[in-house]
């Protein structure tokens, strides 16, 4: 058994622990907000007024898919780079700088969001402090500038984190000029390249248009343009959440199964495919948008379908690696080898169940990607069903399972409650199936997403079961997930304070069966892939963006002072809670 990570790299372990801590806090708040929504929209328990539902919904989205996932990512990637290169960052001050930037960005955004709970929010930077704009912040809905500033700081922090890892690798390369990039580092670098290419979209959207507009510097913007720039980033960000889970599936899961990764070259190909194809697909979130021609929509549909390929390849490699591990452990037969897998290990079981859910969720994703059938499900409850199988389980459950394996190595403490941890991951699996099954069924009959009270004057035409049954199932699933999340946090907390213990965990990652020497070196030449990716992005986006700008103008289709923040209107609309009313409305006297 080798030294624990915390013993070999105490300084880096501290960064990773800090990043994970932030991620877990976000998970706790986000999970609480999640169960509140599940109970509110099903009309089972309403603790807040319906306008406040959207404050909770914004928090749920931002804290989980921005804070939890990405803080876990930077922690995991810091671990992966350090561990696979066998060295720390060149300068730890840069490391703490990006952690600080990301944290302060999160804090600012969180303050703006949580101010939505105040009856009488203070005025900051010229407008009321609140951000009930959901994590997609589609203009002309407008949040306080603090919210956007927070997002910018956060994203800049992740850019610096990437720079830090590239710098570490570069310095390693000087010492190992002929060596292939170790697989975990390769995955980190390729993920970050994808992230650099795609997060430009949201950076331009905020810095050039939304932030100046929310500060009152510009009077108008083009809502189709900011929305398109958002989705330019909004689809790849999904892979930004997913790729750390892939890293765990490719490196840790085969090891936990008792074997080794099946093929290192294929893993590299998969990550390269994500650099190439993640970004030129974003318009598939806009199949229903006017102002974008159906030709462009068709192109992104085909790109999106090819994006299935890396996930298909992953399914093969991961299952093959598991089978290899099972056979090493004495498993045999066509299916009997499944019995030989270490099901008692919560880290293994959690990741495996997450993989199973991911496969199912992939099929619902194919439905979303089909541009004509998308019209049936777009923005219905089906869509959060899909998101919760993919991000909410494939990613989140893998992160939780990975934590059971990593946290002991980062703290030097033994995992507390291994059997409870197994119950926790199984509970998540059951909870997510209850919840998402009801969401899929609800979505197909037209129940909308993102609605505090999807109870309308008309009746849904339901084919199977009944509306109360769908609601009950959704609520049960939500409660199970909440209980599971809390169990997880308690176990991690106990582990963090479990000082007088020796962890039983082996941190070594065995080499792949088919190693990097079986693949051409060009796979490691990242410049080639960056260049091809940029060309593909240009092909997919140059014409749509040019078309959108020529139709509506850079700063809006000559609309005059477009959005006005709320307080001018709030007094008129006495029925609306002033604090929550965040609507941007057209100023008519222009």
């Amino acid at each position, binding site marked *: 058994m080798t030294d624990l990570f915390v013993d070999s790299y105490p300084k880096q372990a501290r960064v990773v622990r800090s990043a994970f801590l932030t991620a877990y806090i976000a998970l706790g708040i986000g999970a609480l907000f999640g169960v509140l929504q599940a109970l509110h929209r099903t009309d089972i328990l309403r603790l807040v007024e319906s306008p406040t539902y959207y404050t909770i919904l914004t928090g749920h989205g931002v804290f989980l898919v921005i804070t939890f996932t990405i803080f876990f990512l930077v922690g995991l990637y810091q671990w992966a780079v350090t561990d696979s290169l066998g060295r720390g960052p060149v300068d730890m001050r840069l490391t703490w700088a990006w952690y600080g930037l990301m944290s302060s960005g999160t804090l600012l955004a969180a303050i703006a969001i949580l101010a939505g709970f105040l009856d009488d929010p203070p005025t900051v930077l010229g407008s009321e402090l609140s951000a009930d704009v959901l994590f997609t912040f589609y203009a002309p809905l407008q949040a306080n500038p603090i919210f956007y500033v927070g997002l910018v700081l956060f994203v800049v922090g992740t850019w610096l984190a990437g720079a830090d890892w590239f710098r570490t690798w570069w310095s390693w390369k000087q010492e190992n000029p002929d060596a292939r990039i170790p697989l975990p580092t390769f995955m980190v670098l390729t993920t970050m390249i994808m992230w650099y290419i795609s997060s430009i979209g949201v950076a331009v959207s905020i810095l050039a248009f939304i932030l100046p507009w929310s500060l009152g510097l510009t009077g108008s913007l083009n809502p189709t343009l900011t929305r398109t720039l958002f989705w330019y980033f909004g689809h790849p960000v999904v892979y930004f959440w997913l790729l750390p889970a892939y890293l765990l599936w490719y490196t840790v899961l085969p090891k936990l199964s008792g074997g080794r990764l099946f093929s290192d070259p294929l893993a590299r190909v998969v990550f390269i495919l994500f650099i190439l194809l993640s970004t030129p697909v974003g318009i598939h979130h806009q199949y229903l948008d006017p102002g974008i021609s159906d030709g462009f929509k068709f192109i992104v549909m085909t790109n999106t379908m090819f994006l299935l390929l890396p996930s298909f390849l992953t399914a093969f490699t991961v299952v093959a690696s598991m089978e290899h591990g099972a056979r090493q452990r004495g498993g045999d037969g066509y299916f009997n080898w499944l019995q030989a897998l270490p*099901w008692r290990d919560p880290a293994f079981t959690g990741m495996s169940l997450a993989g199973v859910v991911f496969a199912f969720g992939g099929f619902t994703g194919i439905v979303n990607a089909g541009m004509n059938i998308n019209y049936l499900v777009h923005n219905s409850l089906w869509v959060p069903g899909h998101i919760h199988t993919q991000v909410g389980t494939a990613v989140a459950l893998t992160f939780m399972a990975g934590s059971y394996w990593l946290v002991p190595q980062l703290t030097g403490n033994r995992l507390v409650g291994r059997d409870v941890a197994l119950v926790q991951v*199984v509970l998540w*699996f*059951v909870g997510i*199936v*209850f919840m998402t*099954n009801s969401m*899929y069924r609800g979505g197909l009959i037209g129940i909308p997403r993102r609605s505090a009270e999807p109870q309308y004057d008309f009746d849904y035409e339901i084919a*199977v*079961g009944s509306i109360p049954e769908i609601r009950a199932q959704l609520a049960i699933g939500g409660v199970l997930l909440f209980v599971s999340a809390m169990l997880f946090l308690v176990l991690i907390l106990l582990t963090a304070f479990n000082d007088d213990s020796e962890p039983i965990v082996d941190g070594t990652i065995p080499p792949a069966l088919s190693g990097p020497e079986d693949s051409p070196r060009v796979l490691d030449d990242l410049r080639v892939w960056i260049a091809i990716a940029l060309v593909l992005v240009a092909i997919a986006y140059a014409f749509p963006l040019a078309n959108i700008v020529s139709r509506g103008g850079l700063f809006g289709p000559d609309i005059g002072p477009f959005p006005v923040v709320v307080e001018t209107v709030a007094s008129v609309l006495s029925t609306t809670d002033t604090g929550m009313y965040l609507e941007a409305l057209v100023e008519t006297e222009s």
Partner: protein
Amino acid sequence: MRTSPAKLLILIAILLVIVVELRTVLAFFDVELTVLQGIAVGIVGIALLLVWAFSPLFSESDQ
């Protein structure tokens, strides 16, 4: 016992998941299970699993 508690737990979880999804799948073939029938199928399934796991009838003699 024929299997380990961990595997039994996972088998029960997978059974629950299959019952939930089965109702939806069967509905495509115009077979509609009510909630109670669904719960009944689940309970019977779990009972069978438990019998299979614990019954001496099935237990391996060379334990």
